[in-house]
Structure formats: structure tokens, C-alpha cells
């Protein structure tokens, strides 16, 4: 066991002891490390002014991730390399291309969001060579700017690649330079941080455990079922920064080796992707999209890039919010959850996990160890759609989310799984509408029946996001849209990137 948080800041080791485990990375930077370049604009991961970049070792190479420092607890950067806006400039004052381009393109006005944008651009620079506009927009999806109108920042994102390479000596080259030798130094420093021990913090304000093996994690949780499981912290972080809730015992999934992987699982029914409890949304979606590219828009609009880098798919599923976006899509394709308590494992269809609003079929001490997603069915008649309806393109909570998976045989619906979010206290399938589709040709009359059945399947709520009437109408219209699209009337891209600039 180690009580000391150890990580690299600009490549140099930092050791921190004696702080409450819920100290956020942002507060540590600003109040303890004197790095006030990283800003607080909301303290809940919405504005991106606090964006910093983490690097860790992944499959022998450096993996770069922009994250929100405001809701990230400091102990979770243990063993990683941290870079902030102060890290980028070279000793002689030469700006990093992301910084230079932001100045030249006038991407900074009041300057308060600027360090966050710079770090998002730096995160992009480290990971992608010559990104297209869509990738650029994705990298900036977690940053709000109230001054510039964003266009100059996009221009900066394009221009930074045309500028001379960065000169700062403590910055490893971007991944796309494919220069393992140049990464070796930081990788060695990262490796030197890891003495194999689990981090444990005991402080009057609370305890923090970061076991290294699944068995340890399961045992500790079974012994202390009152512990708060901390995965990416994109929800738990707000319990601290917004609700000021004391968290006496945190059990972190992030250091468990077995939880970090996307694997394959086979049983009599077929082959499944198995997404471990600590796999980030970004990594989970990368695997999911290889099977189900139709979920690309779901991936883009699920959350901002920094949230996807921190948050986990298992965390989203285990949280079980009625408006969480992953579940309807996963339920539609027939995903399962692997639940573990001590050494006992069981699996459930995902929809069976949710009993009622915020109530789940989880025993005390039991947790979601993995999500299993079936590989894409080989049959040609398989149809999948995942559609999000919200008021804002990025960073919005869905009014309605729909995941549809159909199997068509000779134009007849052989099977239909229709799952919705935002329509009930839990993400749920539309049993009546499914029945109305099954065994029928997918034509206007069939859809009319399914639309009617949907009104019996759900009695949605009215809230600030949408009224019940709007939700039901949109849920029904999505069925119609599915039919029109399959008839080849038009592709539905609710917010497609390509047509953004297309002239009429």
C-alpha cells in the first residue's frame, strides 16, 4: 500500500500527501501548485475551461487524453503524466503550435476559456495528424467560448498543423510522428512511478482505495458495500463540487488491470465484445463503432471528448440514469451486463438491470464488472439505428433517445428491439410497438400501428427539457423516420456534419 499520490508534471515527479482524496485536480493545480492558468468556469465538466491533458502508457506507447480537471479527483492521476497550459511553451518563450495558432487566428478574446481550448487542441495535436473538420469539432466539443463565436478557434485548429513543430523539451512528440524512441523517456519515467503497490489514502475527510486486481476490488467492495465506486468520476465528481457531499470511502476502478481491457467473450450464442469496468467511453465506443458504425452520431453527441476520455461505459450503465444515452442503443443490440459480488459472477440482459427509477437489480456489494455487446449479426437483414433528439448539438441531455435494432427477412420484420431513453423512469423497451412491427412488412400502415402502440408503452414526463407530448410525438416520429429511411427516402442525419456547409 502506498499513501502517496505520485505523478509526473511536465515530466517531473510530484508527490502529494495529506490532502482529502476528493481534492480535485483543478483545486490542487490552482490552490496548491500555483498553476492558475487552468481555469474554473463551472466545476461540473460543462465548460472545459479546466481542460488539461494526461498521458499514460498503453500498449507500450503513450496515450494522450484531454480531461476536465474540475471533477477529477487528484488521486486518480496517480501514475500518469500531467500537462497543463503552463507546460506547452518552450524555455525560450516559443509558443506551442496550438498556442501560436490561437494568437494568430484570434482564437482568444477574454482569454478565460483559452487555456482549456489550447489544451483540447494540444490533446488533438498529440493524437491526430491532419484531422478533418469533423474531428476538430469533436476535439473541441467540451469547450464553451462566449466571445469568439468559435470560428477563429476552428481556424487555429487547422492552422496549428502548418506551424513548425513544438520546441519544448519536456513535451514528447505527438503519437502520429510514430517515434517510440522519443517517447521512451517519459514511458520510463511513468514505469518508474509504479512500484506495484495499490494506492490507499486515509484522511480524516475520507478514505480512498485503488486496488490493482479484480479479485481485490471485488473482495473490498463485498466487505464494504457502503463504499462509493469511483470510475471516471464524471458523475461522482459533481457530488463533491456541487452537492458538497462527504464521501467517506471511495473505491476506484481505474487501477484494476483486468478492468482496463476490451476483450472478446464467447458462449453458445456467439461472440461478444466485453468492455471492462474501467474502459473509458472513448475506448469503448472505438470498439462498438467497429461493429455498429451506425452509432457514430451517438458517440459524437453522447458527451464531450474530455468526458468521454474520463467517463466509463460501465459507469454510465451502472449509474442507470433514465436519460443516459448508451443504454437504449445497447439494449437494442442485446447487450448484457456482467455483475460480480466477491467471487460470484452472473450476467443479465441490460434491460433487466433496471427495475425502477434509480433502482437496479444489484445486491449489496455487487457491481458491474463488464458490459457484453454481441458482435454484429451476420445476416443481411440486420438494421440498427441510434438517434438522439436534444436542443443542443453537443453537451446536451436527450429529450428522447432511441435505439432500434431490427431483423428483416424478405421485407418482413422478423425481430424488433426498440429501446428508448427519456420516455420513462428507466431506459426501457417498447414492448407494444415491437409487437406491432413483428411479422409485418415495414410499411406506413405497420408503422401507424407501432406509433399507436407506443402511446401505450410510455407515459413520459414533462420537464424543462421537453413536455410529455413532445417526447411521445418525437418517439413516434422516429419510427416513421426509420421506415422512410429504409424505404430509401432519405438518410436521417439529425445533425449531420457533411451537409453543414452544403449549399442549397
Amino acid at each position, binding site marked *: 500500500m502506498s499513501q502517496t499520490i505520485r505523478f509526473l508534471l511536465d515530466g517531473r515527479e510530484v508527490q502529494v500527501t495529506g490532502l482529502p482524496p476528493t481534492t480535485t485536480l483543478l483545486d490542487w493545480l490552482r490552490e496548491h501548485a500555483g498553476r492558475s492558468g487552468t481555469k474554473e468556469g463551472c466545476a461540473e465538466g*460543462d465548460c472545459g475551461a479546466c481542460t488539461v491533458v494526461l498521458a499514460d502508457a498503453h500498449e507500450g506507447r503513450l496515450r494522450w487524453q484531454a480531461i476536465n480537471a474540475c471533477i477529477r479527483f487528484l488521486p486518480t492521476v496517480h501514475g500518469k503524466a500531467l500537462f497543463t497550459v503552463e507546460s506547452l511553451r518552450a524555455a525560450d518563450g516559443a509558443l506551442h503550435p496550438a498556442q501560436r495558432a490561437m494568437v494568430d487566428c484570434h482564437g482568444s478574446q477574454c482569454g478565460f*476559456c483559452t487555456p482549456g481550448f489550447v489544451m483540447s487542441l494540444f490533446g488533438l495535436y498529440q493524437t491526430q495528424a491532419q484531422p478533418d473538420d469533423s474531428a476538430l469539432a469533436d476535439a473541441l466539443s467540451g469547450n464553451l467560448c462566449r466571445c469568439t463565436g468559435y470560428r477563429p478557434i476552428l481556424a487555429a485548429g487547422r492552422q496549428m498543423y502548418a506551424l513548425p513543430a513544438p520546441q519544448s523539451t519536456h513535451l514528447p512528440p505527438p503519437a502520429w510522428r510514430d517515434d517510440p524512441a522519443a517517447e521512451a523517456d517519459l514511458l520510463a519515467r511513468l514505469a518508474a512511478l509504479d512500484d506495484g503497490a495499490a494506492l490507499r489514502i486515509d484522511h480524516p475527510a475520507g478514505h480512498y482505495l485503488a486496488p490493482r486486481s479484480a479479485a481485490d476490488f471485488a473482495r473490498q467492495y463485498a466487505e464494504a458495500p457502503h463504499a462509493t465506486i469511483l470510475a471516471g468520476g464524471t458523475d461522482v465528481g459533481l457530488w463533491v463540487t456541487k452537492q458538497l457531499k462527504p464521501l467517506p470511502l471511495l473505491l476506484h476502478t481505474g487501477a484494476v488491470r483486468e478492468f482496463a481491457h476490451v476483450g472478446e467473450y464467447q458462449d453458445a450464442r456467439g461472440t461478444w465484445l466485453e468492455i471492462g469496468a474501467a474502459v473509458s467511453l472513448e475506448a469503448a465506443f472505438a470498439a462498438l463503432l467497429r461493429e455498429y458504425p451506425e452509432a457514430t452520431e451517438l458517440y459524437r453527441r453522447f458527451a464531450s471528448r474530455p468526458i468521454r476520455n474520463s467517463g466509463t461505459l460501465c459507469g454510465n450503465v451502472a449509474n442507470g440514469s433514465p436519460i443516459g444515452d448508451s443504454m437504449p442503443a445497447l439494449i437494442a443490440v442485446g447487450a448484457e451486463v456482467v455483475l460480480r459480488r466477491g467471487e460470484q459472477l452472473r450476467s443479465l440482459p441490460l434491460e433487466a438491470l433496471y427495475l425502477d427509477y434509480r433502482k437496479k437489480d444489484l445486491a449489496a456489494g455487487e457491481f458491474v464488472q463488464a458490459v457484453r455487446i454481441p458482435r454484429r449479426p451476420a445476416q443481411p437483414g440486420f438494421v440498427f439505428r441510434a438517434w438522439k433528439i436534444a436542443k443542443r448539438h453537443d453537451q446536451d441531455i436527450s429529450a428522447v433517445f432511441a435505439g432500434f435494432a431490427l431483423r428483416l427477412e424478405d421485407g418482413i420484420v422478423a425481430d424488433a428491439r426498440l429501446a428508448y431513453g427519456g420516455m420513462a423512469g428507466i431506459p426501457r423497451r417498447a414492448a407494444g410497438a415491437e409487437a406491432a412491427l413483428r411479422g409485418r412488412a415495414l410499411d406506413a400502415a405497420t408503422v401507424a400501428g407501432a406509433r399507436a402502440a407506443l402511446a401505450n408503452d410510455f407515459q413520459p414526463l414533462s420537464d424543462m427539457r421537453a413536455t410529455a407530448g413532445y417526447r411521445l410525438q418525437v418517439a413516434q416520429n422516429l419510427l416513421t423516420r426509420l421506415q422512410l429511411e429504409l424505404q430509401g427516402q432519405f438518410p436521417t442525419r*439529425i445533425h449531420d456534419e457533411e451537409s453543414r456547409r452544403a449549399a442549397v
Partner: protein
Amino acid sequence: MNDLIQDLQSPVADAGTGFVRVGMPVSRVDGRAKVTGEARYAAEHPAHDLAYGVVVGSTIARGSIAGFRLREALAVPGVVEIITHENRPRMRSFDLFYKDMTAPAGAPFRPLYDGEIHFSGQPVALVVAETFEAARYAASLVAVDYLPQQHETNLMAHLARSHKPKPLKAGFSPPPDERGDAEAALLAAPVRIEAEYYSGVEHHNPLELFASTVIRGEDGHLTIYDKTQSSQNSRWYVSRVFGLGKDKVTVRNPYVGGAFGSGLRPQYQLPLAVMAALQLRRSVRVVLTRQQMFSLGHRPETLQRIKLGADHDGRLRAIVHEAVAETSRYEDYVEVVVNWSGQLYACDNVKLLYRLVALDQSSPMDMRAPGAAHGVHALEVAMDELAWALRLDPLELRLRNYAEQDQMKGLPFSSKALRDCYEQGARRFGWARRPLAPRSMRAGSELVGWGMATGTWDAMQMFARAGAVLHADGRLVVSSAATDIGTGTYTAMCTLAADALGLRLEQVMFQLGDSTLPVAPIEGGSSHVATVGSAVAGVCEKLRKRLFRMARRLDNSPFAKARFDEVEFAGGGLRLRRQPSVAMSVEEVMAAAGEARLEEKYLMLPKVLKQKQYLRATHSAVFCEVRVDEAFGTVRVTRVVSAVAAGRIISAKTARSQVSGAVVWGISQALHEETHADHRLGRFMNHNLAEYHVTVNADVGDIDVIFVDEDDRIVSAIGAKGVGEIGIVGVAAAVCNAIFHATGRRVRSTPMTPEKVMAPEGDVSVSAAL
């Protein structure tokens, strides 16, 4: 005068930037400080004895405090003090001492003065601790007992008790008297439209949280880093509230992370931090949370009714524009909502009405293009409704009613290139190809619509002083207690000064953001460049003349026979216009004359008598394309062309960015921004950036900004008018009009959410609210 306030960290352009001219696209001189994180904002100034204050806000909207239960909070390790109205240090009682420079009529809110509650979220206690974490935790343990009274926060429920506002607020003009007979002319008009327009509460939400760091010197002097649009306004307020002399308090704001009007008045974290510093005799920092920023001022909820009457050819016969807006119980916050309708178009019969309803809310505040953002919006949507009623192209309708002079006072415009805005904007957008009828264009699953609107805003000028010191090494330090809330003041002033003296940009430093600098107005109303810029130009002109006289008096001076108008300042010094090889650098002149420094001061007073003979305004024409998916009501703004006439453009990059940023504000107003209240609790509900939506990058399509030629020496000596507000005005109307063109549905309330766009009978919220 101080040559230089060293610790202000005023930015200077990178070495090698070189010579610049007014109007060039210069990169901002504060860019490096901002992209490296070096620029320090109000909450980022260190002090060795710093204590942290966290505000506790009221949970009721109206009533009084019966008592506090503080034992648990005081027991938290590290807590130093909990300040309430019961134990606060002495502060002035008389209302007048709380009136800052932009206060409206009424009795300003006095934080922690007494136990009365005026609005939900009102500060009732300040917990001060050795660490932020301890203060924040203890603040959660403060228990307050209230004696609540029935609150009223719903404008729509209390329209009947509206009153005529007291008009006492800087920059406000009440609606002019009726001209002609509007109602009679309306009845006689062959074509009429009448509609109501509703706009919800909006909050400024600059990215920076409101904060004040009060650093107490050993002698008790307070140096305050405050988030404000005027260091001198905050200094004046602190001095008066606490009875502290001008020499006892310095307020600084060298970097401000956006404000948009929210920093026009001192916000309550300032007096709270000062109170704690005085009581504890140490330095104190108070930072508000994003949630608490929703208890500051807001753009007021407003209901408007417009009636337009026209001839068959589109000529306006009558305009009636009425507005009812909310204010607090303690002040009459006023803004110009309806007057624009008397000035934008030619019409002989105009009736304008503006009233307020006092509610248990904090006073509303100026928010970017206050009054015009929603007032002109309503007019411009109404004009679109009239155009469709006439089956006339909306741009043609505007041209047929083009106002050649102001009819309210019968004055000519100081300059008005609006026709050029229409023409150039329409051409760039391709407006001529627009089919007249709604629902004419479709792309894939979406309907496509094109809409346009006119924008206008005042062109104002205040008075200001500027000081300048030219050093023997050619460095020029110009100063004024101006502010740069991100608008580009540093850059524009450095550009003006460098151009005036022919210096490289990196030779010039502009100092702002310190209350001890020469007097400057609050940065607001798009007047800062016209005001401070003219003062800078004035002081530089004095330097030029002095330098020229010095150069001419030198032995064997090459300028011995030259007149001042025969020399120009360029290339680092002065030279003969007709013979540029006859030149001396500033350094050479200073060395030859044996001068270490030249200092000048200048007081810029607007030429009020001349200005009063003209109506002074900026104008714009906004063209917009939307795509609407009718199955979901979702709207995408794919293209905006904004053509702006705003006088001479001093700093092309910063000005362009001001307008494109404001266009996004307009999109945000159109589609996203609204603060929802729960009137049972009298409280705003979506007080965070997750649920208070501002437009994100992915919601924005192409934005094309055109500055048409204008140069207005009546508004300012430098020809500039100002660009901060004009960019937002009319954008939401253009979006609304484009949605109508796409769908045939008229949405008369903002924001135009998917739900409203889908409603078969047009707008749901207005009909529900009335």
C-alpha cells in the same frame, strides 16, 4: 504620473511584430499572456495572508431572516469567521452611497446590510476560512431561519400591476411622445398585422466566475482585484459604502474573463470580500460559483405587442410597439426596448409604450445590446410578418421604408450606411435567389429557409483622459483606466498609438485596469473605442506636435523649414511626406534634444453640441439560412451573413471577432438561452451550464462578417462608432424569419426550442403564458 505600474503586467506585442496602421488585422497584444495561462484574473492574485470567503445565499425569495444557527459551521477546522448582517463591520446606511455609476432609479441592494430578503439567492452570510475547502464545507452547514412572505416572481401573472418606470439611468431615454395618430392610422391601413412576442430571462454567463481578491497592505491599504467593467466604478462604490478615502483603495481589473454587461455594476462579492478584509484585517478572496452567478442581474423577461399598418405597396402607415418588462422591488431597471421602432423606419404615426412590473427578483442588468436584443427582435419579426402579409420580399419592404432621417427628433443621421449593408449582405448571401413562399426549399429530411433582419444600436461617446510617456529608447507607455473584457481594448489602443507615432507595435504599452490611472468610463454600450480611443489619439497628437517642435529646433534640423502638416510619423520616427528619406527616429530626436522622457496628458470631451444635431447609430443587415427537421423541430443555423456599418474600424481582427461572437450570441438567443424559474419557489432552476444552454461550436455554421465603409467624425475624432453590441441585434429575428420561411410556422417567443418549432399552431409558450 507613474511612468509604469510594473505589477499590472500590461501586455506588449511580441518582438518583431513591427509597424502597424489603424484598420490592419493585428493579432492581439495580450494573446501571448492568454494562451500561456499567464494572464491573471480576479481570483488569481496571491497574498500571503489570504483567507477564503464562500457566500451563503437565501433559499426564499421574500421575507426576513429570523436567526442563524452557526455552531456546526463555526466548528469546522479552519473556519475564521462567519459574517452576517448581525456582525458585519460598519457600512453606510443611506441608499445614495450604494449607487454606482450605472445604477438605475431606486434604492440599490445593500449586501448583508439587514435581515430583509429581496430575492432568492441573495447573500445572507459569508463564511471565511483558511482554505477554500473548509469555507465551502462550512458554508453548507450554515443554517438560516427565515420568516417568509408570499413572493411574486411571475411577470405573466402580474402584468396588470405594471407601472411607468422612473427613467433615471445613464444612457436611457424613455419612449418619445406619440407622433401622428398611430391607432387611427392603423385602422385606416389596408394591411395590418398584430402580434405578441415573449422573451424569457437570460443570464450573461461570462466564462469567468465573479471574484474579488482584496489584498490588504501593512498600512491597511486595500488593493482589490475585481471582476468588473470599470475599476473606477468599483473603487468609487467601495469608498462610498465603507467610507474609505480614494487613497485607501485601489481597484484593478487588468484581465476580465468576459462580462457582457454583468460587470457594469459592482457585484456583491466585492463588498463581501471588503467587509471580511476590514473585519479580519487580512487579505480575502471571494469567488462566486456558477450557480450563484444566477443571483446576479439578468436580461429581464419581457412581453411585447406590435401592431403594424401598411399600404398595399408596403409603405408603413402606423407602428405601435408596447413592452412590459420585469424589474426588482427596489430599483426600476430600465432599458431601451421600444424606441428603436420609432427610428428604424420611416413612418408618420408611431406610438411607443414601455412599462415595468416589480417582482421579488434581483434587479435586471444590461446584457449585450440591452433592450435592443429583444426589442429590435420583435420589430424585425413583425416586419417579416408584414412582408408575408403583403407577399413582398422582406428586404424590399425594408428598403421601401428606409429612414433617410430620424423622425423622432427630425435629425439627420451622423452617418448611415445601412443601404450598403443591405446590398452587400444580400449579394454575399445570394438573397436574390430566395423564393418568396415558405416551404419552398428542402434538402434531404430538412426544410430550408432564408430570413433576414435589420439591426441597430446607439453610437455613443463618453469623456475620458489619457496619459502618455515617450521614453528616450522609443518606448511609449499610454494609460487610461479603461477595461478590456476581451473586446480588444489593449490591442486597439496600442494600434492607435503606434500608428500615431509611427512606432513598432512592440514599442507601445497600453496600461489599463487600475483605478489610479487617468479617468475612463465604464466599458459598455460599444463606446469604449470611440471614447478611450479618441483620448489616446488626442494624447498622441500632443506628443507628435511636441516631438516635431523638438526636432525642428535641433541644430541643423532637417525639419527646420517644415510645417507640422508636412511631416508624417512612420518607420519609427518622423519624416517629410514628400521626401521620406529625410527622417529622424524617435530615439534620435530624443537623444539630440537630450530628453529622457516626454509626458503628455489629454482630456477628451465629446463635442456634445455638434453631436446633438445628429442621430448617431450603428446599423446592420443580417441574413441567415436555417435547416429544420419537422419531425423533431430541430433547427440548424447553417449560414449567417452579417453586414455592419459601425464607423471606421480601428482593429480589424478584434472588430471582426466581436461581430462573429455576437452573431453566435444571436443564435444562442434564438435557439438556446433561457433561465427557467420555478415560481412556487421563486427561484431560477437551471442555474448551471449544463441546463442553461449557450450555443456550442457544433451549433454554429458559417459566419460571414462584412464591414461596409463608414467613417464618422461626429461620433468620434477617430471615426469609430463601436462594434460590441451591433453584432447580436437582429440575428435572432433573422433566425426566426428563416424558420418561418422554412416551415411556414411563426415562433414568437425566444428561445425557439424544437418543441415550439414543431407546434402546429406556431408558438406554444406565448399562448400558454397569456
